[in-house]
């Protein structure tokens, strides 16, 4: 297998873009139901403001997440797993296969409903970030790399399994004892 596999082969599904907004969208729906259910007395203006605000945030979120998705690239090259991310500040990370510690395949409720899966690849480094930034990003990161994780979300279940298989094969071909530092 000499060709380089990238996100073009196993893309992040567009449906995934909706995932980070599921919570705010459900809040929006509840607000709209409240609005329709209210007997059009006082407080209507307030509810409309809330709906507008929430709608605005959802749109901003959708734009951010989809541009995150646009700017996320990975490629499984011969010796390194290369991951690129960043909308304004670009980052690129090279991970030698020999140092990959474990691979996760995860499906949460959203993923189960839409038949998607997330692949998470971990090595033992903390990346080049300081701990405070790391803590901050841990809470929000859903795509790309941070700390010791590389997250490839929104793959179809079958693609996730194939991708896992490819990376495991790479790990097997690059045992750590050949090359202690991995570089």
């Amino acid at each position, binding site marked *: 297998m000499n060709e380089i596999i990238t996100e073009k082969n196993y893309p992040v599904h567009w449906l995934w873009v909706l995932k980070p907004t599921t919570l705010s969208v459900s809040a929006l729906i509840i607000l709209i139901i409240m609005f329709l259910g209210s007997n059009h007395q006082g407080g209507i203006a307030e509810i409309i403001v809330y709906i507008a605000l929430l709608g605005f945030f959802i749109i901003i979120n959708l734009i951010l997440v989809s541009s995150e998705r646009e700017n996320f690239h990975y490629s499984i090259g011969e010796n390194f797993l290369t991951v690129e991310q960043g909308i304004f500040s670009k980052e690129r990370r090279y991970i030698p296969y020999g140092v*990959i*510690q*474990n*691979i*996760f*395949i*995860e*499906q*949460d*409720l959203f*993923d*189960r409903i839409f038949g998607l899966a997330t692949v*998470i690849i*971990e*090595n*033992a480094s903390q990346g080049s970030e300081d701990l405070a930034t790391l803590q901050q990003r841990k809470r929000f990161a859903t795509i790309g790399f941070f700390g*010791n994780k590389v997250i490839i979300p929104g793959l179809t279940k079958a693609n996730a399994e194939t991708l*896992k298989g490819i990376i*495991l094969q790479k*790990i*097997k071909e690059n*045992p*750590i*004892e*050949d*090359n*202690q530092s991995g570089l």
Partner: protein
Amino acid sequence: MQIAYSKTREQFPLSHKKIIKKTIVSTINIINLLLVIWALSVIIPVLIHKNQKVVNWLKLPPSLIFIFLFLIILLIYLYQRWYFAVYFYDLTPDFIQIKKGPITPREITIPYERIQDVYVDQDFLDMIFGLYDVHLSTATISSGIEAHIDGLEKQTAEGLRNIILQAIQQKISKNRNANISTGSNPIG
């Protein structure tokens, strides 16, 4: 229910006592939670309207409470049986694979060479039931959380531990020998 058998699970099966143990643990947790919610829902209205009488809306007949409890336990038991059935672990020639969770599955794959330690432990209920957990961990935090096979009898736990340790040993020495014979190790 169809059990997710692998070669490893056939050889080192999970104990069925695990279902009972987990049912007990989850029941205790859920009842605790319900008690807290109930207590808060009684206390908070009293705190807000100081003069109001305590409205004990949970004035249900004991028989109803028992039926409710029974239903909760039944649901938990069925879920635990499902969890037990889909619990998957397999030792392939190169990797260890553990997968659990019927609704939101999480699967971890670990190469033998990356395992940092293997340990066996028991919590309090495990001691009562005579169960053991086999934990593996690599250098990552999440593997410590995720990679364990719990609810094994003493003999199977020991067997599983030994076979994993053996596999790690073989893997490492095989790689080392390969390096010595080909001289491909740049460090020595």
